């Protein structure tokens, strides 16, 4: 009986993982399309006024958030709830800082030399806007994970809810890896 229950759980977990990856694949198609549009519309053009220090800085913030998210996942898989909560909270904070810098600093800055009415402005705001929306939803997912964990919902035997949310956060970081290259680094 116990073996049957364990097998059923493993099967369910497999389905959930597959479901998450299919979702990630579908979201990737959106970004692939937008990246192709960037090159179709603007080639490898990139304005000189683009703040490279800012781009590098926010990239660093997102990478650190992925590091703390990974730490959180390892800790909850070993039953360390306190460590998990601490690292998840830091991940959330870093994600929020990233989002605020993009919206409150990056976007107004770029508006001066590449407003949405221009070709580069269009691709810039659409790509970073779509990514920012995914960051926002990622933060909401992590917030739910945080609240669930405070209710002792996760254990080493069953922490898929936390792991799934964290995998989605890593996907958000992964997308930025390409968006950063395509908007900030490509070009003469």
């Amino acid at each position, binding site marked *: 009986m116990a073996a049957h229950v364990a097998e059923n759980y*493993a099967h369910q977990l497999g*389905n959930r993982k597959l479901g998450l990856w299919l979702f990630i694949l579908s979201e990737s198609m959106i970004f692939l399309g937008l990246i192709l549009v960037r090159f179709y519309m603007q080639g490898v053009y990139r304005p000189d006024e683009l703040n490279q220090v800012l781009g590098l800085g926010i990239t660093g913030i997102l990478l650190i958030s992925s590091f703390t*998210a990974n730490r959180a996942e390892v800790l909850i*898989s070993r039953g*360390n709830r306190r460590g998990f909560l601490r690292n998840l909270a830091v991940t959330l904070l870093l994600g929020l800082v990233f989002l605020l810098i993009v919206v409150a600093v990056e976007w107004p800055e770029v508006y001066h030399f590449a407003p949405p009415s221009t070709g580069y402005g269009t691709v810039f705001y659409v790509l970073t806007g779509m990514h920012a929306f995914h960051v926002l939803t990622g933060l909401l997912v992590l917030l739910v994970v945080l609240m669930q964990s405070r209710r002792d919902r996760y254990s080493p035997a069953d922490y898929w809810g936390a792991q799934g949310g964290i*995998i989605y956060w890593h996907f958000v970081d992964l997308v930025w*890896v390409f968006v950063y290259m395509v908007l900030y680094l490509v070009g003469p």
Partner: protein
Amino acid sequence: MQELKIDSQLLRRGAIVFAGLLVLTALEFAVAVSTLPGILLLALVLAKAALILIYYMHVRDLRNLDEGGGH
């Protein structure tokens, strides 16, 4: 004792991947501001993506979906 060893190994691995990502990002930036070919930039980005996919997103788990688990 064995549990503690596994914990620190996993955490160390995460830290090494993070360090790798930082180094690759710095190299990316250096390539972008230099006259080195753009294909190098793509290679660095793909390397970063592979690190995230394999070690952070556990894409290899897809091979063993019926076995469940993570670490």
